[in-house]
């Protein structure tokens, strides 16, 4: 039971990180109608920035704040220089162009930081485990991730639902042309939305950096998982992305923790471990395929399309 709660918390934590990536993706999808394969690169860049700035400033928090700002700046520059020219084109041009960007960023990171990975050291008190239930110790830093990502999700909700900018974002998602026709500076809005998406991706990257190695290509697998989240949730829907992110996070974590044991019940040791490994990695894709077969537009399809 304690093991289950621990895995459940891990699932929530993964889900919240996926939400940060998926929220940016789904906003960019929904508002600019852009398939962005380079979104994972911004996650990677956020992690690299955090590792570098934390070393310079000798402070994790200061490094994280600088990295967040820098990633948002990179995102906005990217939008102005390149991404802007891809709006209104078909999805294939998006895939080609942003695939090129992904190759470019991986190589650029290799040029600047070298092929070896980096580590982002944590303040020592973060290493402690907290007793959250009698007998259940959980790493403090993972709790911090959950709390921080929840806070960001809440801020995002307030931004999108309660502010003027959020109103424009929502309006842009349902009818781009009309928002432009009403005199809103749509170019600036797009740049801001892309920067917001970049900041969210960078935040996910820098929060994850101390747990994983900061390395080239770290954004690629999680990008695919984020795409799964966006698709399950329904493209353009932040609420859908939130629900789907938690679902995918839990399915992935709980699957990895329990599927091999389940199979062990009626298969030999080696067969169940290899099959279990394969099956638990497949789980999220299986869930996505099932959901799309039943609901071809995801769980929360955007209202007007």
């Amino acid at each position, binding site marked *: 039971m304690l093991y289950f709660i621990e895995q459940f918390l891990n699932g929530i934590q993964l889900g919240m990180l996926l939400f940060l990536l998926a929220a940016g993706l789904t906003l960019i999808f929904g508002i600019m109608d852009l*398939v962005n394969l380079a979104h994972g690169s911004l996650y990677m860049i956020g992690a690299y920035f955090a590792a570098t700035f934390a070393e310079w400033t000798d402070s994790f928090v200061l490094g994280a704040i600088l990295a967040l700002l820098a990633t948002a700046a990179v995102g906005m520059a990217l939008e102005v220089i390149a991404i802007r020219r891809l709006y209104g084109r078909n999805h294939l041009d998006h895939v*080609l*162009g942003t695939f090129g960007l992904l190759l470019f960023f991986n190589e650029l990171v290799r040029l600047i930081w070298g092929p070896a990975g980096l580590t982002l050291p944590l303040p020592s008190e973060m290493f402690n485990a907290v007793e959250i239930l009698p007998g259940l110790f959980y790493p403090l830093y993972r709790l911090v991730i959950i709390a921080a990502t929840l806070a960001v999700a809440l801020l995002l909700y307030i931004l999108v639902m309660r502010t003027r900018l959020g109103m424009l974002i929502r309006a842009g998602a349902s009818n781009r042309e009309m928002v432009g026709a009403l005199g809103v500076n749509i170019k600036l809005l797009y740049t801001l939305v892309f920067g917001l998406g970049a900041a969210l991706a960078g935040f996910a990257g820098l929060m994850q950096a101390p747990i994983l190695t900061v390395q080239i290509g770290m954004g*690629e697998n999680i990008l695919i998982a984020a795409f799964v989240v966006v*698709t399950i949730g329904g493209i353009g829907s932040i609420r859908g992305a939130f629900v789907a992110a938690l679902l995918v996070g839990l399915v992935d974590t709980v699957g990895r923790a329990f599927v091999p044991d389940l199979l062990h019940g009626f298969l030999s040791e080696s067969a169940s471990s290899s099959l279990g490994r394969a099956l638990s990695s497949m789980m999220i894709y299986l869930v996505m395929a099932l959901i*799309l077969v039943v609901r071809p*537009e995801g769980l929360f399809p955007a209202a007007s399309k």
Partner: protein
Amino acid sequence: MSERLTISRAARLTPRLAVNVVVLFILALVPVYAMLSGDSFAMTLFTRVLILALAALSLNLIMGFGGMVSFGHAAYLGIGGYAVGILAKEGIGSGFVQWPAAIAASALYALIVGALSLRTRGVYFIMITLAFAQMVYYVAIGLDRYGGDDGLTIYKRSRFGDIVDLNNKTFFYYLCFALLLAGIYLTWRLVNSRFGLVIQGARSNERRMRAIGFPTYRYKLVCFVIAGAMCGLAGALLANHTDFISPAMMHWTRSGDLMVMAVLGGMPAMFGPLIGALTFLLLEEGLSRITDYPNLILGPMLLMVAIYVHGGIDGLIGSMRRG
């Protein structure tokens, strides 16, 4: 009148025709060059070009002509390759078993994936094909008996009786060349048939095609399966070419590469995938010779093509006539 028009159009030497003829001519002479100069790497590289061109051609059939943007096409390469590798490991070395098995396995996979995926549209279709390909990728990683994550070396290439020897590089090259040309011919016949016109009609306006009585879902599914089978054959060739199979041949970036080749060459041009595969692989190879950071140049080039060139290289060639 109209007959004369067709004749004069066919006979005129357009830039496109000239480029296609030159490309085919050069490809036909690669083994001669390799023999004269002793550059065996050229053979390896260009054989790879031909095989991946066949894979990109099959993707062009569904993506360029059918409007079905599949982001999981590398899965067929993998399934075709694993069919050959698994049978070879189990002691069945005959190509007469291996290759039909590769084609049949990919066709069956395409049937299942297509039947489920074709219910969705647009970006959802892109993502669900990607999801299925990821599943196959993880299945391959789980196949401990066949190398798991590390892959499997194939010690004997497919055998076709005594006369045919796939270990002969020149012979294997021309076999790939012939299969690619056969694939291009098949695609050309297919898209110009009644079937192909229905597929293309469904790409431009599916609702209208359904309204005039075509069950477009079935047509698209058949097209999807044909493309899968063709790419499965390319997978069987690839496994024989590299003597090695691994999950890496199904990684999602491989699907991205195939898509880049098809789009770069220009869709839905018949020779587009070949020109795209040729350009992409030669660029990759050439850039990695002049710099340690080839993607620093290749990446922005792809971006420029996406932004400034409509219709890939074929579009560029087509616009030469006007400009």
